């Protein structure tokens, strides 16, 4: 058994009296694509943010390659990391291509502007955006286009670990398929480790090696993607089939 790339051990997080994560245990193997499913507001985004330290968890442990995450490891980890935020989180003072090429324009990986731009345009093409969008500002794009720019920014430096928070929400089915394929390609071809949050069962089946179901602050079930239809776990069964009756309350 190899060391997990990312491990969560009993991770807890509360916002005031609201206990969002109540002991999350999860291992992500290197090169694996893990999809997190779970109802709206169950703490999926919070979980991803805990891993990279954007939200400080209250208890439990987060391990990177078997080592506890500290400030120095976090810095090294983030150097080869990309994240698509649920809301896009594009820098609205920068143009689309400057967003995508953010890492190429400053700091250690700095490239000449023309070269950075060319790389950005290339990544934009991969998410289905043509070169004409490169010089627009994020505010001039539609929601789905912003999401794709966020995706292009996340994958710009070919990172080793990538988090996608709802990559296909707000996209039409054709574009959603393009993005699903792209994510799969990144995992298979570049050997990246990916964690994806999605509500879209088509995406789950296309992207995932493994699926984890988060509910009531703990991982209720985890298993290979082809088992989601066969498992007798009532949470997964209800979620995958979108049933109103089951252990997941509809009033949340």
């Amino acid at each position, binding site marked *: 058994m190899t060391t997990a790339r990312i491990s969560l051990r009993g991770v807890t997080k509360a916002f005031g009296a609201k206990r969002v994560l109540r002991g999350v245990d999860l291992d992500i193997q290197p090169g694996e694509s893990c999809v997190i499913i779970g109802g709206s507001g169950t703490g999926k985004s919070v979980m991803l943010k805990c891993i990279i330290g954007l939200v400080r968890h209250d208890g439990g442990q987060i391990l990177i390659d078997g080592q506890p995450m500290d400030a120095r490891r976090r810095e090294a980890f*983030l150097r080869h990391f990309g994240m698509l935020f649920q809301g896009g989180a594009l820098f609205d003072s920068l143009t689309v291509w400057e967003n995508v090429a*953010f890492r190429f324009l400053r*700091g250690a990986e700095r490239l000449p502007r023309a070269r950075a731009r060319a790389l950005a345009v290339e990544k934009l093409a991969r998410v289905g955006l043509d070169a004409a969008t490169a010089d627009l500002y994020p505010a001039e794009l539609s929601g789905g286009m912003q999401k794709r720019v966020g995706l292009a920014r996340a994958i710009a430096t070919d990172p080793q670990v990538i988090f996608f928070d709802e990559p296909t929400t707000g996209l039409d089915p054709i574009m959603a398929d393009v993005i699903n394929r792209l994510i799969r390609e990144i995992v298979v071809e570049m050997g990246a480790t990916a964690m994806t949050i999605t509500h879209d069962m088509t995406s789950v089946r296309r992207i995932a090696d493994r699926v984890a179901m988060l509910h009531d602050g703990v991982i209720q079930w985890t298993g290979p993607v082809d088992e989601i239809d066969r498992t007798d776990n009532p949470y997964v069964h209800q979620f995958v089939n979108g049933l109103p009756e089951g252990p997941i309350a509809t009033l949340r």
Partner: protein
Amino acid sequence: MVILTAATGFLAAIGRAAIALCAATGALVIFAAQAVAHAFAPPLYPGELARQLIRIGYFSLPVVGLTALFTGGALALQIYAGGSRFNAEAVVPSIVAIGVVRELGPVLCGLMVAGRVGASIAAELGSMRVTEQIDALVTLSTNPMKFLVAPRVVAGTLALPLLTAVSDIIGVMGGYLVGTGRLGISPGNYIQNTINYLTTGDIVSSLVKGAVFGFIIAVVGCHQGYNSRRGAQGVAQATRNAVVAASILILAANYLLTEVFFST
């Protein structure tokens, strides 16, 4: 009994407010220290610094200039009207010069910039916070304290002394225009008397005040924006707090600096 509960409730409210004030002050001081530390430790972002210098310094010139011009003019009129008619040639230029350079130049400049720049820094960083842009910076291996806060604080501290110098000069010029145009003071005498009464200490104190005010404006604006919460309303609150807190701190700091420079 009822009175007693009301009294303890009242005291508790005062206590809570006092504790909250101490906590807020402490948080601001820690934030300021971090900002300064990040301003000197690489990686630095000179491009960002240049952009902020232009935004804080250059684009504040019209506001600061107009404020100083009218204030200098009004001051000249007031001094003249206040019984100095017979000795106006000497009194008006000297009081305008000292009043503007020592107090009004830096303070008005600071307050105007607090309204203009402090508010916009808080609103900008606040909306970056609520739209997760600050979180996104972290995922791009960019420390937001270095990339967003440090350049603004350095730019504020550098730009405000220059703006204060401009404010002083235009303020004195406002007095000169009114003094020579309306009050019949001869231009040569006006300039001579201004130069005679101003000391190097006055000018140094003016610029130091400017630097301190610039630091206050940028730190408070960044602190409020950086820690803003709860959507548009949180950003509005951050903006308001930034202007109010910076203005009060500027006035308090002005008093303290005046004690330091002129109390002997």
